[in-house]
């Protein structure tokens, strides 16, 4: 059974329709890449999954549980919303690290705040924090940042910052990790280190959705590709079908623009 099922998502801002009847599913342990030109709705789709935008129609299910159903006029209680959000992790194009915290603090902050809600928090505070810190250190080491844990974001390069952001998103062990153009804000020479880390996550079968403009990377890493244009999914399938042998005219046009560079 698919870990994520998205059905008939609609989203409009005022009279502009941004997502039209978007449906797809994602298998556990697989990587999905969403490609398409700017303004095609890719980022909005990711933001809907992370509850940063509320869709106007459709349903979102994770592991069979309905997280969102537009037909139910549900009151969005903050506590429920928070639990639902934790199914997803999000890596932003502009990193959005917290500037007043070190790399390690960025990674551990949310986990420490969540730990406060544990019944044994008061009695075992030190052990809990130690464990969280160790977890954060492991994640940063995994990102190749063992030497940079106590650096503040402004002391790190863009590529290092984005790797901290990935560690931060992994800290709460989300079911699905979302990347919103993770390398678009980076200088070309820094994209490699971030892509390498994402590739590593894919090798370990982290369930991922990656919105990207890096076609070669998408073809390499993704198990499934979705091409979006003007708010609709034009074409989807295995990378060798969508990227190497696109059927739709719009996909062909888009890809030719990219391969021409």
């Amino acid at each position, binding site marked *: 059974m698919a870990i994520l099922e998205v059905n008939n998502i609609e989203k409009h801002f005022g009279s502009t329709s941004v997502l039209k009847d978007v449906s797809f599913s994602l298998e556990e342990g697989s990587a999905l890449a969403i490609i398409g030109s700017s303004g095609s709705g890719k980022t909005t789709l990711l933001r809907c999954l*992370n*509850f*940063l935008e509320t869709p106007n129609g459709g349903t979102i299910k994770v592991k069979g549980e309905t997280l969102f159903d537009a037909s139910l006029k549900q009151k969005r209680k*903050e506590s429920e919303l*928070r*639990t639902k*959000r*934790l199914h*997803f*992790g*999000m890596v*932003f194009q*502009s990193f*959005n*690290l*917290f*500037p*007043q*915290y070190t790399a390690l603090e960025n990674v551990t*902050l*949310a986990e420490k*705040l*969540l730990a406060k809600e544990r019944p044994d928090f008061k009695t075992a505070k030190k052990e809990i924090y130690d464990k969280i810190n160790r977890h954060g250190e492991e994640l940063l080491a995994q990102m190749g940042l063992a030497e940079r844990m106590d650096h*503040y*974001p*402004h002391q790190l390069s863009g590529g290092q910052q984005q790797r901290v952001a990935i560690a*931060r*998103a992994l800290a*709460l062990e989300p079911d699905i990790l979302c990347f919103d153009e993770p390398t678009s804000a980076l200088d070309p020479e820094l994209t490699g280190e971030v892509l390498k880390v994402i590739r590593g996550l894919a090798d370990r079968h982290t369930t991922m959705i990656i919105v990207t403009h890096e076609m070669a990377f998408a073809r390499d890493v993704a198990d499934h590709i979705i091409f979006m244009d003007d708010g609709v999914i034009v074409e989807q399938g295995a990378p060798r079908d969508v990227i190497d042998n696109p059927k739709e005219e719009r996909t062909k046009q888009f890809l030719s623009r990219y391969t021409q560079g």
Partner: protein
Amino acid sequence: MFWTVTQTLLSGLLTTFEIFAFTLLFALPLGLVIAFGSMSKFKPLKWLIHTIVWIIRGTPLMLQLLIIFYGPGMIGWHVWSGNETGRITATVVAFTINYACYFSVIFRGGIEGVPAGQREAGEVLGMTKGQIFRKITLVQMIKRIVPPMSNEIITLVKDTSLARTIAAYELTFTGYSFMKSAGLVWPLFYTGIFYLLFVGILTLIFNYVERRLSYFK
């Protein structure tokens, strides 16, 4: 004579400090309330607040002080007692309203200046609105508003001299009084030293705060 003048000026400085401290005490929280009102999604409230801020920023503080002090009495409402306390209270009220409006604009800039991505990053990590405000945006906001706030607060020190227009016995007035009573001009110039020292101490405090917040960008 020098000693007598110094003692009198110090008592004036105390009044100046009272006006300064109480204005800050009330104008800081009121400014925050006005800031939130000016960002309200409820349009009538937003327009009302913007109109008030426009009027307060658009007219001289001295005029506002005179209206606050003499206005109520003219309609038979004698809120201010005729003594020194009444004059200082009226000054603090007028200054609080005025400074809260200026502060509110600075606060709004500070709040809106924190990128939306900071709040969103907190949200996707499952933080509550309160946690996001306390743990993420608050410090960033404070860092942003320290320079403009230090400007306003230093201006407040010197604006306290306007209380002279309603005969509150603050620093400038005490200095001026020697001109009338003893024909001495230098005590008035001497008050400048007190203002400089007052502002000097504030500047050191602001520098310290800025340094303390300089560990991040």
